[in-house]
């Protein structure tokens, strides 16, 4: 799941204050589930915006609408009609959703109300943890399901670095377990410890182009 966090109110206000009519668009996907950008959060933000703007002598019209998923064109039927009534759109989706809306309505300014934080999983209600940097070169099969890119402070592919503390924590942050210590322990438990010695080539981190993925079964369809 993509996890996001709402921007500070002042930052949102700074973006929309000059727009007379603003439509705040919630997303029924990931940002609903992580309690950052669903319909409920849209209503909360709108109430705060109205109060703030009113206190500062402004009478901007702030309305709300929630799209089931802002990253998919199939769910924009109503918004295609609604959007013409507004001067700007405020999106409570992840960065992909904001860009999707901006691409669809290039005549309108589209502002992000969230900071897209990471890809992670639910620890509990309202508690999420990062587990994937979407690096595009997954090594989890060799690292016993512990991502060294995400969970090692130095993103080392060939660890550990030597900064592992005696209690198994990371030298960068003692509250964080050393990823390679965890990889070692889990590989040992699985009798696959020889994988610790496997050398992985350096990752191409720089000059990355925008990524695209078409599943094998659909390649012929989209090549036309």
């Amino acid at each position: 799941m993509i996890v996001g966090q709402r921007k500070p109110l002042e930052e949102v206000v700074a973006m929309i204050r000059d727009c007379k009519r603003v439509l705040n668009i919630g997303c029924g996907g990931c940002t609903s589930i992580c309690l950052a950008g669903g319909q409920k959060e849209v209503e909360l933000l709108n109430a705060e915006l109205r109060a703030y703007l009113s206190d500062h002598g402004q009478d901007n019209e702030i309305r709300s609408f929630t799209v089931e998923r802002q990253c998919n064109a199939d769910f924009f039927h109503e918004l295609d009609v609604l959007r013409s009534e507004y001067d700007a759109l405020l999106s409570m989706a992840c960065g992909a959703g904001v860009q999707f809306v901006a691409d669809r309505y290039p005549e309108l300014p589209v502002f992000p109300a969230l900071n897209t934080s990471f890809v992670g999983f639910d620890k509990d209600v309202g508690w999420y943890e990062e587990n994937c940097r979407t690096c595009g070169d997954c090594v989890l099969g060799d690292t016993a399901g512990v991502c060294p890119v995400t969970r090692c402070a130095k993103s080392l592919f060939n660890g550990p670095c030597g900064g592992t503390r005696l209690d198994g924590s990371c030298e960068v942050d003692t509250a964080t377990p050393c990823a390679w210590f965890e990889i070692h322990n889990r590989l040992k438990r699985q009798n696959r410890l020889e994988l610790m010695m496997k050398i992985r080539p350096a990752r191409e981190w720089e000059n990355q182009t925008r990524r695209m993925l078409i599943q094998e079964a659909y390649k012929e369809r989209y090549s036309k």
Partner: protein
Amino acid sequence: MSDTRTCAPVDKLEIKRLLRARKSMMKLYLSHCVRCSLCAESCFLFMTNDQDPKYMPSYKVIQSVGKLYKKRGNVDRVFLEKIKKIVWKNCVLCRRCYCPIGVDIPAMIAFARGVCRSQGVYPDFDEQGAAESWL
């Protein structure tokens, strides 16, 4: 869940307006379902829940969109709460349901969700939602 969301009367005029706006397409979809059940076989929720008929995509749209039109929008909050379970809990909107006739089932589910949302009926993902087993 706030009291306004659970107790306020529904705005029937707004529901009727929404139904009117998509009437031609939705009626066309509803009338073209030939009950072939191919959509059911393409629904992973149906297949992984012992082929329970309540997960059949055709059942879900008939019980939500179909009933909204049948009742001509004269529905109450209790009815919308029932629809909420059908279109959110029993459907993840993965868009994998296949219809040989060309009925856009995901569009119908999304439309039913939109009608519910217009009245403040939608799933909660906070502690309230967890208590309702939405997570």
